[in-house]
């Protein structure tokens, strides 16, 4: 993907976040100019970036939002609930467009129509303002890259790699930055590969009589030929005050400025890592180098005739050192994959706000647990299910305002999204103070939809009845929306969380609210596997997927048609030999008892016949890559203690 676009896709969501946070806070503190400023700056930057690419609808909408925010900033417009709603809608739309660009490289087809609607609303709000002639109704937004062009042209063509890539930086130091010990000149001095530099005053005509030497009024703009990350590193202490953009030097200097488009790579995944964690890794590597040198010294001593006992002691000593360092290295690497939940959690207040506004409800979302960290892949997989749960809570859990009043509850509903760490798991709770779920209603709907037999249904305790909302058959939107208030796509939530190795539980008190609890592993990387042998090979099977292991006496195996069945506590369980599933030549006819892994494939139990159980171990699972990635039934590979490569199987997929 084009680097410029890539950068935009990293920064865009952060800016959306910034704008959204500011807007939501603005509703509570409408007189806080800092919040208007923050929202304005974020929207302004987004608009400028959108203008660099070919996304006119996005530019138009942001331009209109910027105008409205500008009017608010200038005091020409008051902040009211409707205005915030409309601005939040713009931010929400931008967020969705960014996601679309990330996955397809372009805006969705309906973007033009959606943009026209939003712009019309925003302009209507602005049009009654005093000094806004119908500005820019359909004029494409100007790009904010004028400074880049000025810098480029200030250098003449000779200094610039024609058509090459440069990094452009605009650094607006904070007014108080001198007090924080920042020296913008010193920072600029350490930017590698400087091609152009301009240091000027932000406010070109400062009041000289009342000049404050310690209030920073500088702006630093520069171009560098160094790689993006090196330039970013130079500004690592002031990330909030800089705009860093890769730019392509136009082949003709008078051209339309930097621009670039390309198709996105579906596989590109970047990881933002706290610098201190990289420092920790570097430190360990340093110590490993020292330890390695210790081995050379030992080798020299051995060559010089060191006696065996002393050599053994020295070697054991060195081994202990390596053991400690490798352990630390492993922990450090695992921690690099851990990311704070903050960016994810902070997306939701806006989403809840948007959903609530569209339903005419008032809902306040309280988010706790910013500091909790999870593996990157867990975090990535959480957005969808959490979105689902929160939407459900707002849509179905929370009653309309008058109904709440009748029930003696505050009109503004309270929704809590809480994440906390519990050992090597994270627990995430979504709790509302809405109408709760009435087990009787669930029973009725379950009976109507024939989720299970009526006798079985009648014998279910109330706790278990709630669990029925996770049944695929239960979750048809219309039925559930009408009657119970929960359940839309709950099976999808359970599936998504299950894929992350987690569990979903539901608790509800009729009239008081519903709580959904997700329990997820912090790390996906280390997996507990059961080692089994089959046809002379060792395979791993994740412990999570094994219900139990069984030893079946030979005479209890019953042939049914072409297969075999055994009985496990009065339940008939088919037996599938693992060798058959893997298409490897099976072992010869066995004389002793048959060993089987019992797994759950869908609603049924399935036995997988193996030759032996070899214990269990923790493994670092490497996902299959390339051609092997599509191989069914294999989760990945791992290296055993003796150096052999072992395949870790997905028995559910194999048996399915």
């Amino acid at each position, binding site marked *: 993907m084009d680097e410029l676009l890539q950068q935009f896709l990293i920064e865009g969501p952060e800016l959306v976040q910034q704008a959204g946070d500011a807007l939501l806070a603005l509703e509570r503190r409408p007189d806080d100019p800092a919040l208007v400023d923050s929202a304005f700056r974020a929207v302004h930057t987004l608009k400028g970036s959108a203008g660099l690419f070919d996304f006119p609808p996005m530019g138009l909408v942001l331009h209109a939002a910027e105008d409205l925010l500008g009017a608010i900033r200038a005091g020409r417009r008051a902040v009211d609930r409707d205005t915030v709603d409309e601005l939040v809608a713009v931010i929400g739309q931008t967020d969705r467009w960014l996601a679309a660009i990330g996955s397809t490289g372009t805006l969705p087809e309906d973007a033009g129509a959606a943009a026209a609607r939003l712009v019309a609303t925003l302009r209507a709000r602005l049009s009654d303002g005093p000094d806004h002639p119908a500005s820019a109704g359909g004029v494409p937004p100007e790009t904010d890259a004028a400074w880049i062009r000025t810098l480029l042209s200030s250098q003449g063509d000779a200094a610039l790699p024609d058509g090459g890539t440069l990094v452009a930086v605009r650094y607006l*130091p904070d007014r108080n*930055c*001198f007090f924080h010990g*920042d*020296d*913008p*000149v*010193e920072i*600029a*001095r350490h930017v590698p590969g*400087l091609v152009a*530099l*301009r*240091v*000027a*005053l932000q406010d070109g005509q*400062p009041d*000289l009589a009342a*000049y404050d*030497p*310690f209030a*920073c*009024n*500088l702006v630093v703009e520069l171009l560098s030929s160094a790689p993006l990350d090196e330039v970013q590193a130079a500004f690592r202490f002031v990330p909030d005050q800089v705009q860093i953009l890769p730019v392509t030097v136009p082949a003709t200097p008078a051209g339309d400025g930097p621009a670039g488009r390309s198709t996105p790579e579906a596989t590109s995944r970047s990881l933002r890592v706290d610098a201190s964690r990289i420092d920790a890794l570097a430190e360990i590597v340093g110590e490993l180098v020292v330890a390695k040198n210790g081995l050379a010294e030992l080798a020299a001593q051995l060559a010089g005739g060191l006696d065996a006992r002393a050599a053994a002691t020295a070697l054991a000593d060195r081994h202990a050192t390596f053991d400690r360092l490798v352990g630390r290295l492993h922990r450090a690497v695992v921690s690099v994959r851990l990311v704070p939940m903050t960016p994810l959690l902070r997306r939701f207040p806006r989403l809840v706000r948007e959903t609530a506004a569209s339903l005419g409800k008032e809902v306040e979302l309280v988010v706790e647990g910013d500091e909790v960290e999870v593996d990157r892949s867990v975090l990535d997989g959480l957005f969808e299910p959490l979105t689902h749960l929160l939407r459900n809570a707002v849509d179905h859990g929370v009653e309309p305002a008058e109904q709440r009043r009748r029930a003696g509850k505050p009109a503004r509903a309270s929704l809590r999204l809480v994440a906390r760490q519990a050992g090597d798991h994270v627990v995430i709770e979504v709790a509302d103070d809405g109408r709760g779920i009435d087990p009787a209603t669930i029973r009725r709907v379950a009976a109507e939809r024939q989720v299970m037999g009526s006798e079985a249904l009648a014998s279910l305790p109330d706790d278990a009845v709630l669990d029925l909302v996770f049944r695929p058959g239960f979750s048809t939107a219309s039925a559930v929306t009408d009657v119970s208030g929960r359940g839309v796509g709950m099976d999808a939530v359970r599936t998504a969380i299950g894929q992350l190795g987690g569990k979903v539980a539901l608790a509800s008190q009729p009239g008081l609210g519903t709580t959904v609890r997700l329990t997820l592993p912090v790390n996906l990387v280390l997996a507990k596997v059961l080692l089994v042998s089959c046809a002379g090979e060792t395979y791993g099977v994740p412990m999570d997927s094994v219900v139990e292991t069984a030893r079946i006496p030979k005479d209890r195996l019953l042939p049914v048609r072409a297969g075999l069945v055994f009985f496990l506590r009065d339940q008939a369980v088919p037996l599938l030999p693992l060798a058959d599933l893997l298409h490897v030549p099976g072992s010869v006819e066995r004389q002793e008892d048959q060993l089987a892994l019992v797994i759950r494939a869908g609603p049924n139990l399935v036995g997988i016949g193996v030759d032996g159980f070899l214990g269990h171990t923790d493994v670092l699972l490497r996902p299959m890559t390339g051609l092997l990635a599509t191989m069914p039934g294999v989760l990945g590979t791992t290296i055993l203690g003796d150096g052999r490569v072992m395949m870790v199987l997905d028995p559910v997929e194999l048996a399915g």
Partner: protein
Amino acid sequence: MTVRLVDGVIRLEGACPVEEAEALLALVQERPDRPVDLSGCRHLHGAVLQVLLAFRPPVQGQSEDAFLRDWILPGLQRP
């Protein structure tokens, strides 16, 4: 002292830290046409440079520091 007044010329010497902005400001405000000599200067803190950019006193002398000479001084000598 890295900001000194020598024969009517303000001389910035060595690395000028943030505190020197105040001293330079006082000298510049006293007589805005006083020239500033940067030939002995190795670094200008942002606050110091900002005084020069705001008051635009005549600047003379070439710094031996390559960064100042190539990137900062041209911006100050421009009319």
